């Protein structure tokens, strides 16, 4: 190759490289927001649009887009721990989206307690609020703030039963805890497992079982006292509840490997007809109506943990208003955006959105006339359950999240026999006394 030819090749190569790099840079910059006169709201939802569970959500969004073409969204979704991880980083850097998932309980304390969320009380009128299940309007902040409109209630304790197996074994849904224990032998002899419950993630036993037991043993009043330090978690109601969990393990009530199973796997065990009972959350009905054959669905009974001797309450479950959408406080300075965000919240949670979500298996907090809809049996059962079951507190919605990092692993250790119920209670109380925001009064 001659010198000039070589030079030409080199300059061509250089030009190519520059072209490549510059196009890369354009691409690397990401897409620009395009303004077209619409009001654009950025969102960050703890929702997975690809998951069939959120079909109802997707439909509401479609209906909203049709009803309000002037409002456009720039969505972002995430689920699980990673949702919170990123959300905290957003909060820390002050780059909060306009509308975002907000919890009623402590889970998003990092935005609610740091004053980043708009208090909705000034923007919701009485008529609107009255059209909801009153349980939805429980105070969300220390001054009674309302940060989010809960779209539904999260019922955190249901004891589902497969009545087909019960009939086959000549048993019926137990009236008392003692009766439940006495069923274990019969059930196991017949080759089934009594209760499926997946506690691999450490919180299900706490949320779905212990909370209900504590409510039975102590009632709401005791819990309120324990929260602020007028009672202690080393008291009888809490310790006895832990003892019951331990006793259930020792007497073989749970299917083997309860602490190795994710809750999805526990569902799987129940769906496969291997277990008689499933202790799970109420919202599981929507998955059951889509993934179980009709005759199986008809055989599912929704009950609660049976009566416990010495309890102050019977037949109760526990619930917390579920997470909804909150509005960035900064929108208060931007009337157009604020208006749009409020319109969205009211549409989503009010009658229009609620009717759509109902069709997809949810029981919305906004009151609807169910007789006008053709609902699956399990969904009606769930609506009835919510209507007729007194609800206590869910422990992890009331107490600090960091404390759950103490309590939940200890419950597991107790289930393995490496801690006693009393030790668990003492360890948790010691932590709460030193650190929990309910006790420290902030």
């Amino acid at each position, binding site marked *: 190759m001659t010198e000039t030819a070589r030079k030409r090749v080199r300059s061509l190569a250089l030009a190519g490289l520059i072209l490549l790099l510059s196009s890369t840079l354009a691409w690397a910059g990401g897409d620009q927001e395009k303004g077209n006169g619409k009001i654009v709201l950025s969102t960050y939802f703890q929702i997975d649009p690809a998951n069939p569970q959120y079909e109802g959500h997707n439909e509401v969004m479609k209906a909203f887009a049709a009803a309000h073409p002037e409002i456009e969204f720039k969505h972002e979704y995430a689920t699980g*721990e990673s949702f*919170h*991880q990123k959300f*905290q980083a957003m*909060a*820390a850097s002050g780059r909060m989206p306009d509308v975002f998932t907000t919890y009623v309980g402590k889970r998003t*304390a*990092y935005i609610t*307690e*740091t004053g980043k969320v708009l208090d909705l009380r000034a923007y919701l009128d009485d008529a609107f609020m009255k059209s909801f299940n009153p349980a939805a309007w429980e105070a969300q902040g220390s001054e009674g703030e309302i940060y989010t409109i809960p779209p539904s209630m999260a019922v955190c304790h249901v004891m589902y039963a497969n009545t087909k197996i019960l009939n086959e074994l000549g048993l019926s849904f137990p009236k008392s805890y003692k009766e439940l224990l006495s069923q274990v032998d019969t059930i*196991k002899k017949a*080759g089934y*497992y009594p209760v499926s419950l997946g506690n*691999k*993630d*450490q919180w299900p036993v706490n949320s779905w079982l212990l909370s209900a037991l504590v409510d039975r043993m102590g009632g709401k009043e005791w819990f309120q006292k324990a929260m602020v330090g007028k009672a202690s978690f080393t008291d009888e109601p809490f310790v006895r509840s832990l003892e019951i969990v331990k006793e259930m393990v020792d007497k*073989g009530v749970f*299917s*083997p*490997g309860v*602490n*190795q*199973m*994710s809750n999805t*796997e526990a569902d*799987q*065990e129940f769906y496969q007809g291997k277990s008689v009972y499933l202790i799970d959350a109420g919202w599981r009905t929507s998955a059951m109506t889509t993934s179980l054959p009709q005759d199986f669905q008809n055989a599912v009974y929704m009950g609660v943990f049976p009566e416990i001797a010495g309890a102050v309450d019977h037949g109760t479950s526990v619930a917390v208003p579920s997470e909804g959408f909150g509005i960035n406080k900064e929108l208060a300075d931007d009337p157009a955006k604020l208006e749009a965000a409020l319109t969205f919240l009211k549409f989503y949670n009010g009658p229009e959105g609620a009717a759509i979500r109902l069709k997809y298996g949810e029981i919305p907090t906004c009151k609807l006339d169910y007789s006008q809809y053709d609902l699956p049996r399990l969904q009606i059962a769930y609506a009835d359950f919510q209507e007729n079951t007194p609800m206590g507190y869910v422990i992890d919605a009331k107490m600090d*999240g*960091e404390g759950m*990092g103490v309590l939940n*692993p*200890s419950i*597991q*250790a107790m289930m*393995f026999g*490496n801690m006693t119920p009393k030790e668990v209670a003492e360890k948790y109380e010691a932590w709460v006394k030193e650190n929990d925001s309910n006790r420290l009064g902030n």
Partner: protein
Amino acid sequence: MIESKDKKLSFFILLLPALLIYLSIIIFPIGVSTLLSFTKWKNFALVGFIGVKNYISIFTDPEFLQALWHNIQIMLISILGQIPLGILLAYLLYRKLVRATRFFEMMIFLPITISAVVVALLWNRIFSPVGIFTIFMRMITDNPDYVVTIFESPQWAMIPILFVLLWMHTSLYMVMFLANMQRIPQSVIEAAKIDGASESAILTRIVIPALANVIFTSSIFAISGSLKSFDLVYAMTGGGPVNYTSVMSIYLYKHTFTYNNYGYGSAVSVIIVILSVGLITLSRSLYGRYQKKYE
């Protein structure tokens, strides 16, 4: 050697791109972290400067010490498991003890191409109480209550994780050793053969000493990798049950992102870095001594 007037300028032109990116994206944030490790945070708001209190709390927290012990286990399996196994596998292939060496080599290397999330997910689908392995064992032992109890043992719950780590990472070392074995002159081994040396003697007397350098480098990777391991453990067990499989990075993650205590989390990351530096310095000096002995 090379001397010329544009030397200094060239030095910086060559070094700067790497140095700038590296300093601004890794070293600067770590510096910030170090400062923050002396502070207390709540909900991402600075509460105040608290000196070394975070460090004291960390070292008096049994959960952290347990996590640290698990990291040490991972380090031991890396140094005493992955590296020897890597040498052995590489040797089997190098000496062509089997046919289809290239196929086996690929099989051994395959795990490292798969993301830890995928591996963990598959593992859980196999060994959970509703997984294939458990179903199979329940069938053959005729015990419907069979579960893999090792996952529930405070002493042994780390074993499955160590096993997966062994399986995943041995391949990397195998490739490093295999490649370097191929640099040993064939004639040396032929000569040993003629002198009647056994296969194991060739391995221990010729091959391993020739690889001393690579083994040392590998141990550095093994130490640093072990102390910061996160992905696989997090995806497999999340540190549970209880805290039986927690590691320092999970502890760090929990305190930073679940409990929002940024100062505390920063202190943990500083501890991880200091431990790594300490251990690597130690292994460097051990290696130095070994080298002297052989010179």
